[in-house]
């Protein structure tokens, strides 16, 4: 198992994430795992009791998880949002912009490459789930 990259100061949740169906059936779980076909909006009524949402990427080319992440952040979710699975270094910056703040890749990532990925973009063109100011806002500030 590769190392989890975590960009949060709080303590990680210490129990495993359950499926969305299991989460909706039971009231005590604080960690859930979203699969690509799951509807992230089903979680919205329960955000208050969630501390960890894992978004699974079984294959890196399946980009549904990016929308799931942004939807949760747009709804005000502030807990840990972790991308797990086929998470590659060249996707990290985009994932971060969609609100992910932890990454649990199947394959260990090179630390220098990870740093380079997060340092890559001097600016951003559009609004997303992070707090970066888009170019078009800066131009008219």
């Amino acid at each position: 198992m590769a190392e989890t990259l975590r960009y949060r100061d709080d303590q990680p949740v210490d129990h495993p994430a359950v499926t969305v169906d299991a989460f909706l059936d039971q009231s005590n779980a604080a960690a859930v795992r979203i699969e690509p076909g799951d509807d992230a909006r089903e979680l919205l009524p329960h955000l208050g009791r969630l501390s960890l949402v894992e978004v699974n990427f079984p294959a890196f080319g399946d980009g549904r998880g990016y929308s799931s992440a942004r939807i949760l952040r747009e709804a005000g979710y502030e807990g840990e949002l972790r991308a797990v699975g086929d998470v590659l270094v060249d996707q990290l910056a985009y994932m971060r912009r969609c609100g992910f703040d932890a990454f649990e890749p199947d394959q260990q990532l090179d630390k220098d490459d990870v740093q380079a990925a997060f340092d890559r973009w001097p600016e951003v063109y559009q609004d997303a789930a992070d707090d970066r100011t888009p170019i078009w806002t800066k131009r008219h500030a």
Partner: protein
Amino acid sequence: MYKYDQYDQAMVDARVEEFRDQARRRLEGKLTEDQFKPLRLMNGLYLQLHAYMLRVAIPYGTLNSQQMHALADIADKYDRGYGHFTTRQNIQYNWIKLEDAGDILADLAKVEMHAIQTSGNCIRNISSDHFAGAAADEIVDPRPYAELLRQWSSFHPEFSYLPRKFKIAVIASDTDRAAMRLHDIGIQIVKNDAGELGAAFYVGGGMGRTPMVAPCINAFVPLDRLVTYAEACLRVYNRHGRRDNKYKARIKILVHEMGAEEYTRQVEAEYAHLLEEGVEPPFAELERIRTYFEDPLFEAGAPEEVDRSDPDFAVWVDRNTVAHKEAGYVSAVISLKPVGGIPGDATAEQMRLMADLAKDYSFDELRVMHTQNIVLPHVRKADLHALWTALDEAGLGSPNLDTVEDIIACPGLDYCSLANARSIPIAQRISERFAANGKTGTLGELKLKISGCINACGHHHAGHIGILGVDRKGVENYQLLLGGSEAEDVSLAKITGPGFDENGIVDAVETVTNVYENERQDGERFLDTYRRIGMNPFKEALYG
């Protein structure tokens, strides 16, 4: 023309460094080909039949002479002295080395160009009307909206791993010169009864193996909500588009299977949500972009008369120049369809000449047409003879715009690893046939489009006459289609019947034009006659 500021330049420069780093990791073995492929594709780098191929973006088809010179220099320095202009207003080079790709992107960045998102399952280069800013019939220049969407879609964090590629076209006239309704999203800038500008959204069109004409899902999106509406369209697609079968992954299949009404309902719900999120750029940004697309300083009272005493010149003027909104000016089309030539190819020398002529005669501006020709958008009528003389000497004076010789052809099996049959030789034989029998002019407007496989890069579904190359037990075979149009009278062509071999398809095209000549009524184009009399007379003549 749009000019980069320090922000745009910084983003393009960062992309060059990112790709250099990715290519390095691939060559060092840190990335497998499966991992690298989507990354190189998002920088326009394919692995084609003979080598890597690089597709360079020409946003909304507009470029200046310095940029055209840079494209010529790349052709000479890194390729084999030529390039191929494509049906999405881009240019591609066929003989690129992976180890050079970073340097090419750096050369492009120096002239405010790039290859960002010219392939891959992301939002591709935004295309537009090649006569934008010049056409007499547009209500406004569509390119500022295309540029705004270019910025929005560049490195979009949520929409870079879509189910499939995503193509957007923007027009601003009722005449459609950009195949708008055959795009994933077609946007027409319109005016409402109150005189306000807005955007009509047509979603779910496309060609490929399942051609569809996009339905209008919203007839008027206010311009200060354009990006928000596009974001809603994309989010519904990213979440619900099919990912189980790449041949059913385009948005047209989603809209078709879900139904346009249900898709629209979901988009409207997402739109309402995103309006609260506030993802729209400040309206001042659109105003800023518009200032780059203001009219050049046209000469007031430029003379209208053209000396037509040279008959060859007069034919070229009649066929290859198009009405301009400004008196005394025209848009002049440089045909990249010489008889027997390769549609859309231009040598580095021809690119340089076109660049220099643009500088001398067209306010330093050129356009790439989706029909694989080049436009000088703003030419004084008084300069036409000098322009034509220079073009003709360089083999660029073919007077055949919108004729049977003005063929769209995909690269086909000569270059493309997806193709099943060659397209280019068929185009060559057809243009030679009609040049020889002298009918090019008398047949009038006749749009002939050839694809070498069902992916339809040669737009065969939208040809008045379409040709589709297929593989029949290892032998090239060509199906004939009739009745398509990519214009405002959009329709999808229908197949005539059994296919033909290489010689047979050229004869078949001549046969259907003979039927048209016998049946046409006054003023009818081939397409009009077909629509009036139907398929049967053509079938009868072909298979009788």
